[in-house]
């Protein structure tokens, strides 16, 4: 595992991680049909860190998120989450279509045991944060793809999670919408102090957002390389520094998937 860029940009002391995977392997299926999805992955997510996982499809990126989210159990190894609750955001916004945007957020609050009298103000504050003020009464299908993802982000925040897991959340959006959502996500991350694990196959996006980028090899997923991103924020996705690091990671990615 090589470490590039400046060392210790994100200091991760032993045991001070918001979430850790220790030698985690995950196999799906049994017998001859068994598929090893990820193999011996050891990974710490620091408190307040923005960690990006990149890799070709089939590298087990989503499996890692599901393990941290508790949706899957590891076949071997340990998964520890110390930094509080996790919320998971998908490429598809996964808003409940039968509820308005506002009600989607209220349901998240309700399921977290927030008292009813606080729903209204919290909902409005979250919508405000996601730049969706005044759209509480809209149904998900009435929104554009970018707005849906913002609403999903607001709903994730309503889950009062301290670790936000994002599974290619902007993968289906056009480039301009995505750029703007990068800015907003970065702002939210700064303001809230969340730990973020962001999965993407878009290397530039990973460099644009992450404190650290972890490159995974495919079939089975293993940690291939780790890159610390010491480019000062705010970053632009088309800046020369981002492009240069992205090019380096892409080269490694090609090598890994070859």
């Amino acid at each position, binding site marked *: 595992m090589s470490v590039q860029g400046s060392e210790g940009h994100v200091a991760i002391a032993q045991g001070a991680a918001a979430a850790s995977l220790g030698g985690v392997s995950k196999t799906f299926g049994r017998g001859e049909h068994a598929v090893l999805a990820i193999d011996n992955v050891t990974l710490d997510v620091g408190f307040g860190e923005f960690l990006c996982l990149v890799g070709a499809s089939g590298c087990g990126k989503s499996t890692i998120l599901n393990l941290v989210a508790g*949706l899957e159990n590891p076949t071997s190894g340990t998964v520890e989450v110390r930094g509080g609750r996790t919320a*998971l955001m998908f490429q598809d916004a996964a808003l409940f279509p039968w509820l308005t945007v506002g009600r989607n957020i209220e349901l998240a609050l309700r399921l977290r045991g927030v008292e009813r009298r606080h729903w209204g103000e919290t909902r409005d504050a979250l919508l405000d944060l996601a730049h969706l003020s005044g759209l509480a009464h809209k149904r998900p299908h009435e929104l554009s793809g970018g707005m849906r993802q913002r609403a999903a982000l607001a709903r994730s925040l309503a889950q009062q999670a301290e670790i936000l897991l994002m599974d290619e959340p902007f993968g289906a959006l056009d480039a301009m919408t995505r750029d703007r959502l990068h800015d907003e996500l970065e702002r939210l991350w700064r303001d809230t102090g969340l730990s973020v694990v962001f999965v993407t196959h878009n290397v530039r996006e990973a460099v644009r957002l992450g404190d650290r980028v972890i490159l995974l090899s495919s079939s089975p997923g293993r940690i291939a390389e780790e890159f610390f991103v010491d480019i000062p924020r705010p970053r632009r996705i088309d800046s020369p520094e981002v492009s240069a690091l992205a090019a380096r990671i892409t080269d490694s990615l090609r090598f890994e998937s070859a």
Partner: protein
Amino acid sequence: MDLLEAEPAATGPENETPSQGRTVWNATWPKLGAVGVVLLVWQIVVWTGWKPSYLFPGPREVLPRLWHDVMNGELLKASLITMRRGVVGYALAIIIGIGLGAAVSQSRILRSAIGSLITGLQTMPSIAWFPLAVLLFQASETAILFVVVLGAAPAVANGLITGVDHIPPILLRAGKMMGARGFAKYRHVVFPAALPSFIGGLKQAWAFAWRSLMAGELIVIIATRPSLGARLQIAREFADSEGMLAAMIVILMIGIAVDSLVFGRLERAVRRRWGLLDPAGG
């Protein structure tokens, strides 16, 4: 900053409300036209002299008879008796169907045990149950209820099972991440997500219930309960073709009314809410 996204899909259903009267007229005239065509064809068949008019009377005889039977209260009374049976049987079928559907959709063992049986029951013609029903319960209200429930409950159960099976897994995962567990999961995620298909099942179940009920009323005739089916049967025995056709028209009209006023509206409301309806074409 939201220049690109400032305009959401502004073509919601609320934007296309012409005057109420015009909407009603637009929905009504094709139906009225169809009724007119049916009456015309009927009259033409009568004019050809295919059957003597005491066996197959035309609309000019039947419609006044219908009016007469409605006005003297007999058809209304018969309809109420029949509808009451229909509603009770249907309600029971919904309760049983939901219980059955919920159990089968959540248990793999139950599914492999009785999943295909439920579909099989649905294809079983309800009239085939009547000999058994009459043996078990004699010619009674219970016999009719038994067959109505057997006819309708599988459709309710199947609607629910299909609905649960077709919930996008991502919604279940989202619900799980939001902390929806146990009863809350069913209340806030599973049931609402399955609702469109469940409504389809309810609609189908009503059609089955109504058919089973008519079959039942032809077979199980209780002297003190002059239902629509009993009227049909008695009219046949007395060769009262006009009375029979008048009752048939009422049966048809009740079926259409319930389907379009209750289920048609329910289905559209749910589909619109779930975003399954094309606002332009819907």
